[in-house]
């Protein structure tokens, strides 16, 4: 499967770009998020900042400028971890739920069409040894096409 290898080569690059973009955008809006969090948590009466300007000056006053970025490291780490888990587990789960991979295998020249349909007479099988594909039953069907459509949609978005 040389075609698949070519696709995989760009994955680390794409991941690095995504990680950098995510960290940059989170860092850019971190002060807004910090103040927004303070507003959301403040009770309607008593202590706390209920307006953006008072929240902003409260942080500046007691923590300094860098205080506006407090918690940003955690949200960056979380975003990266969760994206990593998301993509790796998606691959594993999708592999179990019959994705495009099975279709690619069905198109591969090593497979003969006879293998995808149940053979009434096992002695007449084209290969005397076990089926080369581990998931022969996943080669077609509507769910596969549906999943492929969803994946394409996800990537396009």
């Amino acid at each position, binding site marked *: 499967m040389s075609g698949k290898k070519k696709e995989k080569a760009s994955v680390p*690059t794409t991941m690095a*770009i*995504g990680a*950098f*973009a*995510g960290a*940059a*955008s*989170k860092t*850019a*809006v971190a002060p*807004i*998020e*910090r*103040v*927004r*969090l*303070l*507003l*959301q*948590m*403040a*009770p*309607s009466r008593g202590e706390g*900042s*209920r307006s*953006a300007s008072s929240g902003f000056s*409260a*942080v500046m006053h*007691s*923590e300094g400028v860098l*205080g506006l970025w*407090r*918690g940003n490291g*955690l*949200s960056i*780490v*979380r975003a990266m*971890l*969760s*994206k*990593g*888990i*998301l*993509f790796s*587990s*998606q691959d594993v*789960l*999708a592999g*179990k*739920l019959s*994705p495009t991979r099975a279709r690619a295998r069905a198109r591969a020249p090593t497979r003969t069409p006879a293998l995808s349909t149940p053979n009434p007479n096992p002695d007449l099988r084209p290969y005397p040894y076990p089926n080369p594909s581990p998931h022969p039953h996943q080669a077609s069907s509507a769910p596969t096409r549906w*999943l492929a459509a*969803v994946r394409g*949609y*996800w990537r*396009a*978005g």
Partner: protein
Amino acid sequence: MAGGGAGLLAGGLTYPLDLLRTRLAGTVGGVTSVRRVALDIVRTAGPLALFRGVHATIGGAVTYESMRFGAYGALRDRGMADGVLGPAMCGTAASLLAGNIIYPNDTVRRRLQVGKHARSESYLCALRALHAEGGMARLYRGIVLYNIKVAPSAAVQFATFHGLKRLVESRSQS
């Protein structure tokens, strides 16, 4: 289905980090060490307390993403996501729409995360308490900042992604 399962797994496993961030950044002054905050929570309420409010967060994320992608798909089907700026603008519009609808959930989940109130306060109780405190305005507090945030956030994301991609492409060609 795989996407949904993966989303649940990713959101659930990393949830403690979100809770710690809320605890750390939700007050002015106070403890600044992540480790101390985490140890405090585990010591006083057990490790499961790190997952308090996880249902509100994941439920909100699932609803938000499905609304966002639904809106994005509707815009794209009308041919509004073509060209260079199209996807970014449609993405921002869809995010704004979904975010403004789901916003009260964000306020509720913050309240559940701090856990200052009754220990096992349910989602509905928290929603009702916040509404009783200040009506819809209480639930939507911070919405202006939220809307200010989404636009540059999406813009930076798209700009860095496309810029870096171009950089990598030109390097690999030469």
